[in-house]
């Protein structure tokens, strides 16, 4: 089984020494993110997020199924995370590593448990037919900070997603194809984003945002904070690691809030751009389909 490359002693020492002198290997500030890029696919609900060399693809999809017996009025919403060997040879298919479990738990808590998606609106016929919305997260390239990138991708994909329109007439449920009726957006309540801090040093006194893979290997602890732009905490996870002063954690939360507001504005802008782009292209696509026949 291939191992994950361990950083050498020289690298370990140098990264810590440089951090003591306020230097990061790529010349960033401590609270600076790498360039964040977001592209939407041609289909609805495909979001491709790159954060430096980290790249995550999320795809949302929906189908009609039977609801769970104990929740007849709620739709089903799932997030599936897969870390394939494409991202790093240390990942194996079908055997989730601890990282994978923690990432999927975090996404679940951030997006699903915080009620970002109104699952009641996914109900079609109580107890019989509901929409099952599923987001698949694929990590295409791993250079640290998977959590923030994955969370951004999931939220972008869901905000971009359109599910087929339906109607209910005298007990008959009709699901329309995109050609018949324009698909409709999900009922979205708020957009949470993750911000991960990495702590270095014996006392955890150095805090970095958006650590690269190398930095993640050397860090002493981390804390992921999920917020939305209204300043609501959706989840905080500091799962062990070196103890950090409580005051530092509060400061980190406040900085995270400004970052989340930036993310939120960025996503809104991208979505607006995409809608504009589709408006023009939508007409063209219809014309070309006519010509094919």
């Amino acid at each position, binding site marked *: 089984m*291939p*191992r*994950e*490359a*361990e*950083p*050498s*002693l*020289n*690298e*370990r*020492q*140098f*990264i810590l*020494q*440089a951090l003591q*002198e306020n*230097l*990061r*290997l*790529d*010349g960033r500030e401590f609270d600076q993110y790498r360039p964040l890029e977001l592209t939407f696919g041609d289909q609805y609900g495909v979001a491709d997020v790159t954060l430096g060399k980290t790249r995550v693809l999320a795809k949302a999809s929906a189908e009609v199924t039977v609801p769970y017996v104990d929740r007849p009025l709620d739709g089903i919403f799932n997030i599936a995370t897969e870390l394939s060997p494409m991202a790093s*040879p240390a990942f194996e298919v079908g055997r989730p590593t601890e990282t994978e479990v923690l990432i999927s738990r975090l996404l679940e808590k951030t997006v699903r448990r915080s009620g970002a998606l109104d699952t009641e609106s996914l109900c079609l016929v109580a107890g019989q037919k509901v929409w099952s919305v599923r987001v698949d997260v694929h990590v295409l390239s791993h250079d640290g900070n998977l959590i923030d990138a994955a969370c951004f991708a999931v939220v972008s994909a869901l905000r971009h997603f359109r599910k087929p329109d339906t109607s209910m007439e005298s007990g008959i449920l009709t699901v329309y194809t995109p050609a018949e009726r324009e698909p409709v957006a999900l009922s979205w309540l708020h957009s949470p984003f993750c911000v991960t801090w990495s702590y270095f040093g014996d006392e955890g006194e150095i805090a970095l945002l958006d650590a690269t893979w190398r930095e993640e290997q050397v860090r002493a602890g981390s804390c992921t904070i999920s917020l939305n732009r209204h300043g609501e905490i959706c989840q905080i996870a500091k799962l062990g690691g070196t103890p950090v002063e409580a005051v530092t954690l509060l400061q980190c939360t406040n900085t995270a809030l400004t970052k989340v507001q930036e993310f939120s504005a960025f996503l809104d802008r991208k979505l607006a751009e995409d809608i504009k782009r589709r408006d023009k292209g939508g007409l063209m696509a219809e014309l070309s389909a006519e010509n094919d026949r």
Partner: protein
Amino acid sequence: MATEHPLVLPGDTIDPSLIPTHKKQPLRLGPGLRHVPPSTILPTVAGQLVTDLRKNSMWVEYNGGRYIPSQGDLVIGQVARSATDLYFVTITPYTANASLPHLSFEGASKKTRPQLLPGALVYARVTLANRHMDPELECVSATTGKAEGLGPLAGGMAFDVSLGLARRLLMARSREEGGVEVLEQLGAEGLAFETAVGRNGRVWVGSDSPKTVVLVGRALTETDEKALGVEQQRKLVKKLIREMR
């Protein structure tokens, strides 16, 4: 450049006029080429075909892929663990470890050999490399008994670069042939640092000031990732120096 070194793809036919001919020496094929008897030469990788008329040899220059050790290569390895009389050294994380005898350091004896902890970096030469055995390394020249710059690397930082850049950096005239001038430029700007380039795609940079190391590292990785030419490298160095001040 392009006319001198034509691009070949796997399975391409090679123009016979490109194959060097020499009266006495036999034709030597380097990496990326395959001889199919009786007289066909096929490239097996995509890259630039390089021919050397004097040595009557030809090979394909390509950037990428994983490192495959070959005899005489200088590499930067990472000590994985120590056995009774040798170190196991990782050259790339995903291949079998190479072995480096405890006594193959300059002036090493049973008592004076360097004690390397797991994770330490060494600059070493590949002495044995073939397909069916784990590679072997040395940190001392077998003929002269001198280190010749090889040995444990103390302090500093190792950066990962592509195999192509590592090879270009190791060329005797890296500016003219390899098109990399970034290290000379940085030196000319008055930075004091030392480097060791491993053929396995790792460059070690050492300096008293971490700032310099970070700067050199950024210059190297950026040159590599954006495939900068000599002129752009100059600009990059100027820009980085300005940022640092």
